[in-house]
């Protein structure tokens, strides 16, 4: 029983992490219909920035996290303004090729700068080990992830539903043409959201170094996970991807624990079945466009 609860807890932590990593992609796909396979590269950038700050320069872990966010967001906005925006109107094939190219470049570049082996971030003593609550082992680090990601999710939901920017964003996702007709600066909204999504990915990358493992192949290894979150969750709201990430996280942890030999098999089968059953995602609406 306690093993199940511990697994459930780990699954939730994993799922929340996936959500933070992937929710930027949900916006890119939903708002601009842009297939960004290079999303993992932004996460990796954040992770490596955090690693360098903590391990090499002796920053405290919690001070390095915001910087991981900022640096990834900065890279995101620079690339969006210079390269990405030329490709919004192009075919999906072009977008796929372009972002695969970027992914390859990021993999080789990080390999060149930091070496190809897996890196670890030195964690403060507070976050190490686990404690028991009624016999259920709770990892401190995973608890922190759940707290941070939970707060972020609530914050995102609030911004999206309560603020003026949120309503602009939702309007732009629903119908970009009508939104720009109403005077909403859709490209600006998008650029900002893109940068924010990249920042979140960077934060997720920094947090995930401990759990998912951080090496130069991160963008390729986890690309499929991000895509699963978005396609299964649908891109019309953030609750869809959120639930999809939790499902994926718990499914993956449980799958690895109970049927270790089948490993990723469970996840991929689930994804294909769901996509065949509901091509617009479990929680997506039928596409208006």
């Amino acid at each position, binding site marked *: 029983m306690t093993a199940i609860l511990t697994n459930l807890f780990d699954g939730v932590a994993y799922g929340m992490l996936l959500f933070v990593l992937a929710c930027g992609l949900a916006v890119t796909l939903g708002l601009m219909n842009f297939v960004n396979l290079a999303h993992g590269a932004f996460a990796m950038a954040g992770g490596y920035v955090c690693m360098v700050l903590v391990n090499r320069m002796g920053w405290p872990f919690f001070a390095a996290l915001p910087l991981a966010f900022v640096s990834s967001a900065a890279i995101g906005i620079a690339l969006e303004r210079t390269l990405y925006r030329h490709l919004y109107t192009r075919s999906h094939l072009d977008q796929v090729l372009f972002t695969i*190219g970027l992914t390859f470049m990021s993999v080789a570049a990080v390999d060149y700068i930091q070496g190809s082996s897996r890196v670890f971030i030195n964690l403060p003593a507070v976050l190490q080990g686990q404690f028991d609550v009624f016999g259920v082992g709770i990892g401190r680090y995973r608890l922190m992830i759940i707290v941070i990601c939970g707060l972020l999710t609530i914050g995102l939901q609030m911004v999206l539903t309560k603020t003026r920017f949120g309503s602009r964003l939702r309007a732009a996702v629903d119908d970009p043409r009508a939104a720009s007709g109403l005077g909403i600066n859709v490209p600006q909204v998008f650029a900002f959201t893109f940068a924010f999504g990249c920042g979140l990915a960077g934060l997720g990358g920094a947090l995930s170094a401990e759990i998912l493992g951080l090496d130069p192949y991160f963008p390729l290894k986890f690309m499929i996970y991000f895509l*699963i979150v978005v396609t299964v969750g649908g891109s019309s709201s953030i609750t869809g991807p959120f639930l999809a990430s939790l499902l994926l996280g718990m499914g993956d942890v449980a799958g690895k624990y109970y049927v270790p030999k089948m490993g990723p*098999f469970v996840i991929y089968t689930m994804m294909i079945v769901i996509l065949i059953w509901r091509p617009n995602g479990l929680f997506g609406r039928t596409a208006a466009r």
Partner: protein
Amino acid sequence: MTASSDVGFHAQRQARWHYGEFAFWLVVLACGFLFPTRYLIMTDILRLALFAMSLDLILGYAGIVSLGHAAFFGVGAYAAGLLALHGIINEPVLALIVAGLAAMVLGFATSFLVIRGVDLTRLMVTLGIALLLEALAERFSNITGGTDGLQGIEMQPIFGEIPFDMFGKAGFFYSLAVLFVLFLFARRIVHSPFGLSLRAIKNNPLRAAAIGIPVNRRLIAIYTLAAFYAGIAGALFTQTTAIASLDVFAFERSADLMLVLVIGGTGYLYGGLVGAVVFRMLQELFSTITPQYWQFWIGLVLVVIVLVGRQRLHRWVLYVPNLVIKQVAGRKSVVAVPESDA
């Protein structure tokens, strides 16, 4: 001339063999005699060309974007490896066809999943299938050899007459013959009414359905055929290198394949062949400059190609040849890449 006979006239003229095509194949054949020390890399190019042609059939003619074409390559590779390893079918040509058929069965089964949904769903499903197969191959390591791959494959002579030699000469001409035969077949298909209907589907599925083309059936057919081609390419890989490992399913293989086709251009069958040559040359060049980080430059090539625009790039490349032809023959724009945005 009525409209329908006009279409038929142009279709037939398109389908005729040009001088350039004869020259192309003669050059390829000549390479086999001119560079006797480079058989291994040339065989590699032929394999890649066949694989790229397979993707061209679905991407260039039917407009299906696939990120997991390596699935069929891998099935073909393992099928050929297992057939040879356990001595089930010793004759390479027969084993090649059987391996191709194995991939074809998989292609037929998965085509029903692929024709559903839009581009993005297709990307995900094709990618998912390739990853699934990779996971399966890893799981059933007692059959596939797991991460070590299939080892100790010994190929029997082709037709029981021509043995595979260590310089790869037999392998090269064997691959060339297979490529040429399959090319002829593909060429016949894409110029047939069936091929024309595929183009109609690619341009506008709704309109194609409205004029009575059974869209789904055609897509299933071409997807299955492309899977057969990819399976043959995979089987050639195993037969000429005598290994089959997990990386036949790797995502990088599917991604590289896209690059090959993009370099060469889609929708005229030669794209895969030209692209394979250029891609391998680039790869050689980059890996002599930076042995470990050639992937960076490959990525850069992709980014640049997309930013410049594939059609514009092809116009630039063909600018000089067209100028020469114009001066010499007095005709306008003979060499052109008939490509629409896939």
